């Protein structure tokens, strides 16, 4: 009989040794508030479930510990939206390229141009 337990879920961290808590609340960046708003709407109109998002985040495996909170939740939302057929990977890749171009992210070290009131 095996003496080792199955690998712990990525989110099952209660009791793990860890460092000091950064006790300052850093609030949310604008994009994080947008990400939260998006998730919240999708749950409110019952198109996705919290349980599905949690499971998708847990399935990040080794990535889980490497990502920040909203990076995890955004990855999880991506997984669930594709799973349920709301969007496809190809559509998302194309749209991300479009959004990236709109942000006018430079390749050189220049200040990025901010477009106020850009059409979304």
């Amino acid at each position, binding site marked *: 009989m095996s003496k080792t337990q*199955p690998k712990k*879920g990525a989110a099952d961290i209660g*009791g793990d040794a860890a460092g000091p808590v950064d006790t300052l609340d850093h609030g949310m960046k604008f994009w994080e508030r947008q990400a939260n708003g998006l998730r919240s709407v999708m749950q409110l109109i019952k198109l996705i479930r919290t349980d*599905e998002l949690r*499971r998708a985040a*847990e399935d990040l495996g080794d990535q889980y510990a490497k990502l920040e909170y909203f990076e995890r939740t955004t990855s999880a939302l991506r997984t669930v939206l594709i799973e349920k057929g709301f969007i496809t990977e190809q559509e998302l890749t194309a749209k991300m390229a479009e959004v990236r171009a709109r942000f006018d992210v430079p390749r050189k070290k220049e200040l990025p141009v901010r477009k106020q009131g850009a059409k979304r």
Partner: protein
Amino acid sequence: MTAPALSGSRQQGAAPLPSTYTPAPGHRFKVGDRVVVKIRFPPGHRRTPRYIRGKTGAIERICGAFANPEELAYGFDGEPKKVLYRVRFLQKDVWPAYRGPARDLIELEIFEHWLELAEG
């Protein structure tokens, strides 16, 4: 948004207030029962943290019956509902190296299918 402070009596014909709790017909355990959390390591989405598996505590309250998150996470409807309990543990019974006072507690919610009556 503030509401007038109601004294506890409600207007006639008012809709019933929503409740934290739901009915749990046929619940297996009662408040005060000593229960032990099963030692199982099923893969996938579980809401019973590893640190509490195998530990013995007491039923603190019956929360009600809820759709099973282990199934909701995968797009099932989680029916039939499972009874959810709050279970109270002494910290020293959970962590062998717990350094705080002997009476410190940890309380969490455990689904009925993860619990057995403790021996003795």
